[in-house]
């Protein structure tokens, strides 16, 4: 019997793999069919504003215990903050559903990356999740999306909402628990109660909305946010 590694290498040459199909022709055809994707432009601002408003009301109504008074609208496009007397029940936070794991290179070209690169990158229907830590033990989560976004945070009555500035753009800092409702690019309303929903920084960069969540101070969050490019 030869050395194990020699034996394995030899075995490898005899292991049966299915025949490699000829991929080149089909791939070339696909590249020609779809020219390097021009990104879809944003719809007209008015249409978006209306969509957000309509959806916001719908979303609140869709959450049964939300005896709501809409008290506060903030100036983030795609993001509204709704105060409610009582938060809807949230399922226990388990493993986050982050979508499909991709490499940083595969993430959409508009993805913003802070100076500390994430441990993993996930894409879910046009939403990009940058994760520090592991999906079971999340240290920081940065969610980014474009398209026709809508995020709503339901906050319990007394919660503080602090306005901040990130690279010259308006943002908000939230320290209290909240529930995140989210309209995905296909128009489905998603319940993201399983997000970390601890301390959160929300801001915009160009037409990308970013949400950084994790157990961190406002100063740390702002530093990370400002480094994202």
């Amino acid at each position, binding site marked *: *019997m*030869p050395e*194990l*590694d*020699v*034996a*394995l*290498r*030899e*075995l*490898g*040459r*005899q*292991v*049966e*793999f*299915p*025949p*490699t*199909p*000829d*991929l*080149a022709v*089909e*791939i*070339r055809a*696909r*590249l*020609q069919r779809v020219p*390097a*994707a021009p990104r879809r432009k944003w719809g007209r601002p008015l249409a978006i504003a209306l969509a957000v408003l309509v959806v916001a009301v719908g979303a609140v109504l869709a959450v049964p215990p939300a005896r709501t008074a809409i008290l506060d609208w903030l100036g983030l496009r795609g993001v509204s903050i709704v105060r409610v007397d009582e938060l809807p029940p949230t399922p226990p936070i388990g493993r986050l559903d982050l979508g*499909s*794991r*991709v*490499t*940083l*290179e*595969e993430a959409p*070209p508009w993805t913003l990356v802070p100076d500390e690169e994430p441990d993993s990158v996930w894409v879910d229907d046009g939403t990009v999740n940058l994760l520090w830590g592991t999906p079971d033990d999340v240290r920081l989560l940065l969610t980014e999306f474009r398209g026709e976004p809508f995020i709503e945070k339901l906050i319990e009555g007394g919660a503080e909402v602090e306005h901040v500035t990130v690279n010259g753009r308006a943002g908000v800092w939230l320290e209290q628990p909240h529930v995140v409702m989210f309209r995905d690019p296909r128009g489905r309303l998603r319940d993201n109660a399983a997000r970390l929903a601890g301390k959160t920084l929300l801001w915009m960069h160009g037409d990308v909305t970013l949400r950084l969540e994790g157990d961190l101070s406002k100063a740390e969050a702002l530093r990370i946010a400002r480094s994202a490019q």
Partner: protein
Amino acid sequence: MSRPREESELVERARRGDESAYEELVRAHQGIAFRTAYLVVGNAAEAEEAAQEGFVKAYRALGRFRPGSPFRPWLLQIVANEARNRRRSEGRRAALALRVATDQAPTRRRRIQGRAGFAGMADSQSSSGGAAPSPEGALLAGEEREQLLAAVNALREEERLVIACRYFLELSEEETAAVLDVRVGTVKSRTSRALDHLRESYA
């Protein structure tokens, strides 16, 4: 082996939108890309789709490719990601049991096409009329071969994959790390653990 200089030229041309340059890259790497996807996803049809999708995504991501760095590990990482996502969305574990190519049917030769230099090796074991047996062919008797492969198949999936990448696909440690999405150190430790387990079950 690819010729690095020529390859980086092909990559550069493809980056500028030259589809025929990219087609050459596809032809050069489709074999290893397909087999890598096959190991991860566990069946040929899914592996073909994963490899194809991986190549298309890699083309679109060429703008982020660091010029001068090796193309293959970068490509294999994208293909393996694609394969993993498929397996996950199918909601099943890969039940891939590797087999030794047998020599009963002459058509089996084609099964190992693309493995330059080894096509037909299995045939040389028994049906060798005129073909000279490969020098390595003599190292493992048929029975030992089956035994060793059974031991590999019996490993935990993460150990089986690292063995398959390193010894069956003959990927480098760096490439294996890219495919398995772990650090090179993890590849080393996992490989040595897997070898220990193989020695135990196969000694």
